[in-house]
């Protein structure tokens, strides 16, 4: 296998990765969670909490970054002809794969993007998580190379494609109006303007570059292409540099999420495999959903539903521990994914 890289595209991805990494570090400085200034899955969890889907007040906030990413990506797609409503590729199965992905994410407390940010913060457990993520993507790549598919996506109506961004607009209204039925905790969050600005820029960058934090490893394993990996590398490097400049590095010190190396590895193996099956990391799913891809929307909604289930039934890493039920959920999730992989792999 010959290693290759498309230099021009890689430079764009380096820029997008830098926006993500440095932007996340800056948002942490302004009040967002430590080692998670932007985290699609964790912020989806917080939105789920605000809407009452789970009862953990600490993780209840209508994260405006998510809304801004959606609108940034949508506007970029509309202006460049990239808005292509489509869907129908095993939609319900994608929802459930998203849920399983969440079980892994919240057993570790980190999606692929947050794993990179935890690594950039100096968290040693993130190394085990990254190893697990790579292992999961590797397993997924084997399935992909042997014919795994969730089926073809087909064009759908403009209304379907705009439904997800419409819901995002409602979330922003709810945040600004704060009706009684919305729970907003006092947990760490950056000022609204900073969150919206960073999210919008990241949404545009993500849509224009196809930034994906697992696609790089997938392409490396399948075809030796390093282009997409540039995004993840620069996410970590730029976040690290920004953390150093802002005095946020805690090298070798574990602060948030799971510090258990073995379960971090297993949990992120689930995340890597699920993301490979979905065709991209949670960030990529969010951007796809924003540009009319309803399959991406199902993946993200599955992640949000999985977050709610994880925190309602103590499957997540909470109170400095991963409960037995959480471990069962992670292992069961891995086995289910392998079954899905076998059932959906067909050589023609």
């Amino acid at each position, binding site marked *: 296998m010959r290693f290759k890289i*498309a230099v021009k595209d890689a430079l764009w991805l380096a820029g997008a990765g830098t926006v993500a990494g440095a932007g996340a570090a800056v948002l942490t400085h302004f009040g967002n969670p430590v080692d998670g200034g932007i985290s699609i899955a964790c912020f989806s969890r917080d939105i789920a909490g605000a809407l009452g889907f789970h009862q953990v007040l600490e993780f209840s906030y209508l994260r405006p970054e998510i809304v801004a990413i959606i609108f940034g990506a949508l506007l970029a797609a509309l202006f460049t002809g990239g808005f292509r409503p489509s869907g129908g590729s095993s939609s319900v199965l994608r929802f459930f794969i998203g849920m399983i992905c969440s079980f892994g994410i919240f057993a570790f407390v980190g999606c692929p993007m947050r794993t990179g940010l935890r690594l950039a913060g100096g968290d040693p457990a993130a190394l085990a998580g990254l190893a697990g993520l790579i292992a999961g993507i590797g397993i997924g790549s084997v399935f992909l190379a042997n014919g795994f598919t969730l089926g073809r996506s087909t064009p759908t109506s403009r209304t379907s494609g705009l439904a997800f961004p419409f819901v995002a607009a409602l979330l922003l209204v709810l945040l600004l109006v704060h009706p009684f039925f919305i729970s907003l905790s006092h947990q760490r969050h950056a000022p609204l303007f900073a969150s919206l600005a960073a999210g919008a820029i990241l949404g545009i960058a993500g849509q224009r570059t*196809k930034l994906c934090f697992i696609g790089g490893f997938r392409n490396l394993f399948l075809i030796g292409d390093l282009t997409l990996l540039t995004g993840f590398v620069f996410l970590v490097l730029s976040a690290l540099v920004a953390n150093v400049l802002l005095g946020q590095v805690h090298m070798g010190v574990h602060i948030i999420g799971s510090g258990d190396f073995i379960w971090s590895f297993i949990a992120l193996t689930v995340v890597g495999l699920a993301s490979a099956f979905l065709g991209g990391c949670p960030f990529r799913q969010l951007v796809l959903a924003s540009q009319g891809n309803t399959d991406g929307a199902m993946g993200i909604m599955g992640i949000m539903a999985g977050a709610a289930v994880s925190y309602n039934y103590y499957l997540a890493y909470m109170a400095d521990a991963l409960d037995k039920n959480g471990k069962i959920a992670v292992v069961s999730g891995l086995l289910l994914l392998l079954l899905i992989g076998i059932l959906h792999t067909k050589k023609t």
Partner: protein
Amino acid sequence: MVSRRVMTFHGTYYVLKAEKLLQKEGISVEAIAAPRHISSDCGICIRFPRLDEERVRGICASAGLEISGVYDE
């Protein structure tokens, strides 16, 4: 005129299969990450010399590989 073309398929497996098949037929082809300006279901595609396009299309058709799209690189 751009000297190379890229071709997308409806899944990773078909890209890899096309690459193998075309290499066997002596065509200078390789699988790459789909360029930014190209939409692809699976994120990868094959790249080959423009002059070989007709041959590539013919081989893919004979092998039953449904092409999703063909673009300038």
